[in-house]
């Protein structure tokens, strides 16, 4: 009989950091023959949006010493750096390395796991997964070129989705070539005259990426930034660790009281000469627990009122990027507007953008040659038109979490169907777990999820495979 029928197949859809790391763990730790098929629609595997950037000035926002792909081997990234003659001398544990270098690291991690794997076999498929069909104990993955193949388990590592266009009454400007709806487009910054003014919508990390990329290409023109609050991410600073002041048992279960406790602690810390960053960082080990023990209404309250402040303090920017932005602000090249865009008026040479200033009725008009949407990634799965998501939705195989900021998942990463039944063969990790965990998008969280998920897959399959082989 054909031995391949008994081969266990795991399909991983998406080869960003999440999918690639699951594949690497499976290859390293397989204790029986498994076939791993990793499907990526983009021509580059292993980088995803975050580490696929072409700009040197796009730095990691976590220092090198904390960016190992493996939670149980914290020096792994630093050791890889040492093998690179161009980096070995300049990168220290506290260096913020360009993200594109990190992308090369992830690719090496996969290649090494593949080369040394005892039982695993990896197939890289450059294609788009468009549908999943259930077929008894297996599932069939369908690709856009018509091919299909069966798998015993599927990991949806779909990652980050593009931002939605900011709501506005007259949307006609959004069809203009002067408007870039997707900030990571390879064309976001092409065809801009060096002296043209540019408007960046949003003031978070994405906006900073675009601003420093403009500098990298020698842009001289004004950079306008507009967001509701006009708040920019804070820079990193090395601090001494702050002792834990909260535990999941002692923490209040409402946002208002939690906020109050943290604020008081920050005040005390500053009075003692400590930095507020250290106080926030001390919360990191329990953030997921704090989130999970909040009632749904309190989680909503957090998203509505606190999220914006949390993000600028928690997701900080590397000192190198912060310095560049400070220079732009001081020279007046960058101007930050707190407010909302009211209207666009385009003519042959540019566009006038009317901004209503926050908490006033004043409107300011800025004239620019290009407008780039730098609002954060969209995470409401009910909105996605992607064929695969539509297919999963229409079969009831997935559902959004209660806050609609990700997918509903069980603690082991298995997806919940529309009736809340835990899937036996569909799993996810990374950004789609946001509703459940809140903190789930950065490398330090995803690397743990990838290791645990690979173990979970292997355990459930080893039972399955011994059953098939006997």
């Amino acid at each position, binding site marked *: 009989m054909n031995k391949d029928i008994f081969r266990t197949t795991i399909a991983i859809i998406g080869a960003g950091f999440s999918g690639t790391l699951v594949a690497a763990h499976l290859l390293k730790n397989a204790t029986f023959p498994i076939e791993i098929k990793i499907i990526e629609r983009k021509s580059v595997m292993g980088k995803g949006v975050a580490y696929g950037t072409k700009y040197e000035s796009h730095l990691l926002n976590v220092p090198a010493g904390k960016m190992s792909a493996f939670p149980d081997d914290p020096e792994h990234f630093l050791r890889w750096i040492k093998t690179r003659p161009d980096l070995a001398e300049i990168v220290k544990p506290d260096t913020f390395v360009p993200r594109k270098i990190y992308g090369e690291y992830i690719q090496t991690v996969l290649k090494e796991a593949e080369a040394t794997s005892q039982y695993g076999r990896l197939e890289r498929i450059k294609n788009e997964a468009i549908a999943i069909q259930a077929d008894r104990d297996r599932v069939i993955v369908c690709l856009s070129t018509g091919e299909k193949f069966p798998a015993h388990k599927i990991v949806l590592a779909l990652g980050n989705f593009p931002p939605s266009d900011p709501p506005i009454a007259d949307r006609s400007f959004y069809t203009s070539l002067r408007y870039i709806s997707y900030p990571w487009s390879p064309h976001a910054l092409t065809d801009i005259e060096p002296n043209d003014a540019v408007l960046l919508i949003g003031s978070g990390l994405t906006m900073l990426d675009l601003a420093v990329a403009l500098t990298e290409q020698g842009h001289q023109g004004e950079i306008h930034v507009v967001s509701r609050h006009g708040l920019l991410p804070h820079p990193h600073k090395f601090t001494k660790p702050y002792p834990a002041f909260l535990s999941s048992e002692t923490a209040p279960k409402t946002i208002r009281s939690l906020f109050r406790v943290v604020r008081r602690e920050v005040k005390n810390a500053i009075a003692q000469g400590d930095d507020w960053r250290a106080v926030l960082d001390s919360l990191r080990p329990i953030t997921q627990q704090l989130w999970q023990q909040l009632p749904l209404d309190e989680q909503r309250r957090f998203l509505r009122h606190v999220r914006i402040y949390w993000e600028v303090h928690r997701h900080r920017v590397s000192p190198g990027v912060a310095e560049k932005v400070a220079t732009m602000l001081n020279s007046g090249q960058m101007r930050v507007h707190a407010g909302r865009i009211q209207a666009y008026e385009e003519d042959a040479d540019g566009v006038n953008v009317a901004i209503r200033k926050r908490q006033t009725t004043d409107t300011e008009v800025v004239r620019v040659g290009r407008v780039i949407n730098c609002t954060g990634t969209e995470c409401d799965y009910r909105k996605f038109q992607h*064929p695969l998501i539509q297919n999963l939705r229409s079969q009831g195989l997935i559902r959004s979490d209660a806050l609609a900021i990700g997918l509903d998942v069980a603690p082991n990463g298995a997806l919940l169907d529309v009736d809340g039944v835990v899937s036996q063969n569909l799993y996810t990790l990374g950004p789609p777990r946001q509703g459940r965990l809140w903190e789930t998008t950065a490398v330090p969280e995803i690397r743990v999820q990838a290791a645990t998920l690979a173990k979970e897959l292997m355990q459930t399959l080893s039972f399955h495979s011994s059953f098939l082989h006997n």
Partner: protein
Amino acid sequence: MTINLLTNRLTLDNFILEMMRIPPPDLQIEQLAALVSQLDLNDILLRQHISFSDRTYARKLLCRTSRFDMLVLCWHPGQFTTIHDHAGAINVTRVRSGILTARIFEVYEEKSANEKWVRLQSEEELDRGKLAIVDRHQIHQLANTSDEKLVTLHVYAPPLKNINVYCPNSGQVDEVNLTYSLEQ
């Protein structure tokens, strides 16, 4: 050097005039490509036809003459066409915004006129301003495999009435009649 799309201006009207000057049997695919590559992609008429659809890519007829059809196609990430050929028409496609994946297929086994087995031969990614040139019987598939929305402009000469669709799983070839929506 990248072409500055905002200063590249052959209006739609002038494009139509140019096309009407060339007698249909003489129209070479290179000529068509040269004209399409000069079109003003920020043209307001073109922009008015940009609209996306949830189930599949949206196809809007921009202009139909006795000699050619011009269409705007709008694609959400992940959307794609069937594997098909244009049953004798020549076609030039220009990327207006986003990245287009153009795949060419080859027949590796031909059992009959209605059963041809195809497989992927090559794949190319085309970005802003670039052209995909599809000759009379080339079998191909277009897709948006990027994360951003895609808008493409297509000219077919003569106007497309039907296409042949190839099924990679059954080998079956079907002739499919095309109808376009004219509403905005």
